[in-house]
C-alpha cells in the first residue's frame, strides 16, 4: 500500500499504463488513506462511491488504450469548484445544501482527462483567509509537525485558503489537488506543506463554475507533489473557455517539454532577478539564507542572477486589501436567500436579506464585505478604490519594467514557516502579512510557482517562489525543475498516510 501512495501522478500514470496497478487499486488506496487521516479535517465531503465508479471506467479505458492525460488519478477538489450533483459550499454556512446543476470548467477538464474524484476539500470560507481557520467546517491541521522548538507538540496551520487541499496532499489522501489563488491561496499552503503550487497567468484556467471571491484576482491552479506533476496537471486544467469573459485564447506552452528541457540541458543563460524589496523586516534568517541558496542553485544550472527593483512592492498588500474586499462585497451580494443557499425568514425582503446574510456569513467574510462596502461607498470610492487601482497599475508596471531585462524573479514564498493554529487569527493585519510575497503576482496577473526548497530549523517546509511574465508558465516550470533537483526535498510529513 505505501508503495502506491508514494508514487507521484506521473509515476502512477506510467504504472497504470504498464498495468502494474489498476485505477481501482489506486483509488482504493487513496480512499483508505483519507479514512486513516480523517482527523486532519481536510475533506468536507467524501464521494467514495463515485470515485470507485470513475476508477472502474478508467480501467476500462486503460484496457482499450483510450486513456486520458490523468486517467485513473485520484483528485480531491477544493470546495470552491462547483461539482455537478455534489454539494458545493465554499466552506460557508450560507451555501449549505447547495448542489450545483453544472460542473466547473476546470474540474470538467480533469474528468474529461480521466481523473477520479475523491471528494470535496475544506478551505477558508469563500477562500478568505491564510490559515484555513475561517471555514464553517472548522480548521484543518497540517500533517507536518515541528520536530523541535516552540511549535513542537502544537497543531499547525496548513495555510490557506487552499489549506485542506495542501493538507490532503501532504497527508497523501489525494494525489492531485486543484486550488484557487486570489492573493497566495495556492502558493502559501503549498509552501507550508512541502508541495509545489502554481498560480498561472490570470485567464489560463477558466473561472466558470468557481465560486467567485475577487474576480480580477481569482485564478485556479495545481497543487502537486512535484514539478513534473504540476506540469501535467496544469496542462489538463488550462483551457480557453467562452464561458469566462477573461479566459485567455492563447496556447499553453508545452510544460512537460519545458520540464524535460530544463532537466536535460539546464537553464543556461536564463536571467533571474532578485528583487531588493522582498527583504522584509522580521524575516527569519533561515528564509533569507534559503533564498540565497536558491539563487546559487539557479546559477549552478547556468542562470545569471541580477538584483532588480520593484519599487512599489510595499503598496501591494494595502492595495490588495482594498481591491479584493471591494470585489468580494460585490460578488457576495448574490447570497441573498432567494435563488440558492440558506434563507432566514424576515418581515420584509430587506429584512430577509439582512437576516440571511447575517446568519450565513462568518466573521472574516463579514469583515471583508464591510470593508469592501465602505471603500466602494459614496464619498470614499475615489479615495480608496480608484487609488488602489492606480497603485495596481504601478505594481504591474514595476513587473513589466524588470521583465524587459530578466526572464523570471526568485523570492521566498512566505515570510515564515507554518504557524500554530489560532496564533494569528485574532489579528487580521498579521494574518494579511502572510501574503506579502504572493499578492503582487495576483495584482499584476502574472504566473508564479512555489517549490519546496528545504526545512526550517524546527523541521517545517519552506518554499521558494519564481515569478514570470504573463503566459510564461514554461519559464516557471524550467526554473522550478532546477530548484527541485538541487533542493532534493524528499521529506514526508509525519501525518502522512502509509
Amino acid at each position, binding site marked *: 500500500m505505501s508503495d502506491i501512495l508514494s508514487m507521484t501522478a506521473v509515476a502512477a500514470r506510467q504504472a497504470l499504463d504498464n498495468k502494474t496497478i489498476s485505477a481501482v487499486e489506486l483509488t482504493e488506496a487513496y480512499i483508505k488513506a483519507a479514512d486513516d487521516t480523517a482527523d486532519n479535517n481536510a475533506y468536507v465531503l467524501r464521494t467514495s462511491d463515485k470515485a470507485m465508479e470513475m476508477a472502474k471506467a478508467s480501467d476500462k479505458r486503460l484496457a482499450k488504450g483510450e486513456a486520458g492525460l490523468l486517467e485513473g488519478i485520484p483528485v480531491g477538489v477544493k470546495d470552491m469548484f462547483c461539482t455537478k450533483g455534489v454539494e458545493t459550499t465554499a466552506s460557508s454556512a450560507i451555501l449549505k*445544501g*447547495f*448542489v450545483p*446543476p453544472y460542473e466547473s470548467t476546470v474540474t470538467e477538464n480533469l474528468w474529461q482527462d480521466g481523473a477520479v474524484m475523491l471528494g470535496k476539500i475544506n478551505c477558508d470560507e469563500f477562500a478568505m483567509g491564510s490559515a484555513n481557520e475561517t471555514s464553517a467546517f472548522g480548521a484543518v491541521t497540517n500533517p507536518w509537525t515541528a520536530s523541535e522548538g516552540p511549535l513542537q507538540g502544537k497543531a499547525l496551520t496548513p495555510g490557506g485558503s487552499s489549506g485542506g487541499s495542501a493538507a490532503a496532499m501532504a497527508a497523501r489522501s489525494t494525489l492531485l489537488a486543484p486550488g484557487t489563488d486570489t492573493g497566495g491561496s495556492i502558493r502559501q499552503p503549498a509552501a507550508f506543506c512541502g508541495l509545489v503550487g502554481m498560480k498561472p497567468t*490570470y*485567464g489560463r484556467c477558466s473561472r466558470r463554475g468557481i465560486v467567485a471571491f475577487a474576480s*480580477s484576482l481569482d485564478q485556479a491552479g495545481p497543487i502537486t507533489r512535484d514539478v513534473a506533476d504540476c506540469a501535467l496537471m496544469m496542462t489538463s486544467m488550462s483551457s480557453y473557455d*467562452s464561458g469566462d*469573459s*477573461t479566459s*485567455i*485564447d492563447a496556447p499553453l506552452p508545452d510544460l512537460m517539454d519545458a520540464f524535460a528541457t530544463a532537466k536535460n540541458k539546464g537553464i543556461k543563460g536564463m536571467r533571474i532577478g532578485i528583487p531588493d524589496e522582498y527583504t522584509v523586516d522580521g524575516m527569519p534568517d533561515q528564509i533569507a539564507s534559503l533564498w540565497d541558496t536558491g539563487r546559487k542553485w539557479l546559477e549552478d544550472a547556468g542562470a545569471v542572477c541580477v538584483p532588480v527593483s520593484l519599487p*512599489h512592492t*510595499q*503598496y501591494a498588500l*494595502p*492595495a490588495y*486589501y*482594498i481591491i479584493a474586499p471591494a470585489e468580494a462585497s460585490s460578488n457576495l*451580494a448574490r447570497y441573498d*436567500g*432567494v*435563488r*440558492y*443557499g440558506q*434563507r432566514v425568514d*424576515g*418581515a*420584509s*425582503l430587506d*429584512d*430577509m*436579506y*439582512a*437576516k440571511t*446574510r*447575517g*446568519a450565513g*456569513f462568518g*466573521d472574516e467574510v463579514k*469583515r471583508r*464585505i*464591510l*470593508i469592501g*462596502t*465602505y471603500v466602494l*461607498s459614496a464619498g470614499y470610492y475615489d479615495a480608496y478604490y480608484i*487609488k*488602489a*487601482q*492606480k*497603485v*495596481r*497599475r*504601478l505594481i*504591474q508596471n514595476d513587473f513589466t519594467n524588470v521583465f524587459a531585462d530578466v526572464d523570471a524573479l526568485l523570492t521566498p514564498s512566505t515570510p515564515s514557516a507554518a504557524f500554530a493554529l489560532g496564533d494569528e487569527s485574532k489579528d*487580521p*493585519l498579521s494574518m494579511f502579512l502572510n501574503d506579502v510575497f504572493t499578492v503582487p503576482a495576483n*495584482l499584476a*496577473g502574472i504566473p508564479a510557482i512555489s517549490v519546496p526548497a528545504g526545512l526550517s530549523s524546527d523541521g517545517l517546509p519552506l518554499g521558494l517562489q519564481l515569478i514570470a511574465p504573463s503566459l510564461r508558465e514554461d519559464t516557471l516550470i524550467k526554473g522550478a525543475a532546477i530548484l527541485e533537483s538541487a533542493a532534493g526535498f524528499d521529506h514526508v510529513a509525519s501525518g502522512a498516510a502509509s
Partner: protein
Amino acid sequence: MTDNNSEQHAIDTSTIQKIARLARMDIQPEREQALCGELSTIISWVEQLGECDTADVEPLASVTGHSLPMRDDVVTAGNEPDVVLSNAPEEASHFFVVPKVIE
C-alpha cells in the same frame, strides 16, 4: 499621521451600522464595538497608499488588456425551470418566492 487624522478616519458604530445596512447584512450588536476597532485598524493601514504618488496614473481594472469577447445574441441554453429552481429555498409554480414587497 496625526491624532486628529486618525480620529477623523476611525470607523464608529454608526458607520458600521450604515455600511452593514448598505450590505444588507445583520451585525450582532455585541460585535459592533469590536468591528469598529478591526475596521479602523485595517482602513488606517491601507491609507498608507496616500504616500504613493499616482498623479497621471490610469486606474487598472483588468490585467489582461483584452477587450471583452463578443458573441452572437442568440439563445444557447435555457428552458430548464426545474434545474434553475433546484436550489431555491422556496419556489412555487416555477417562480422564486420572496416576502411580500408591495404594501
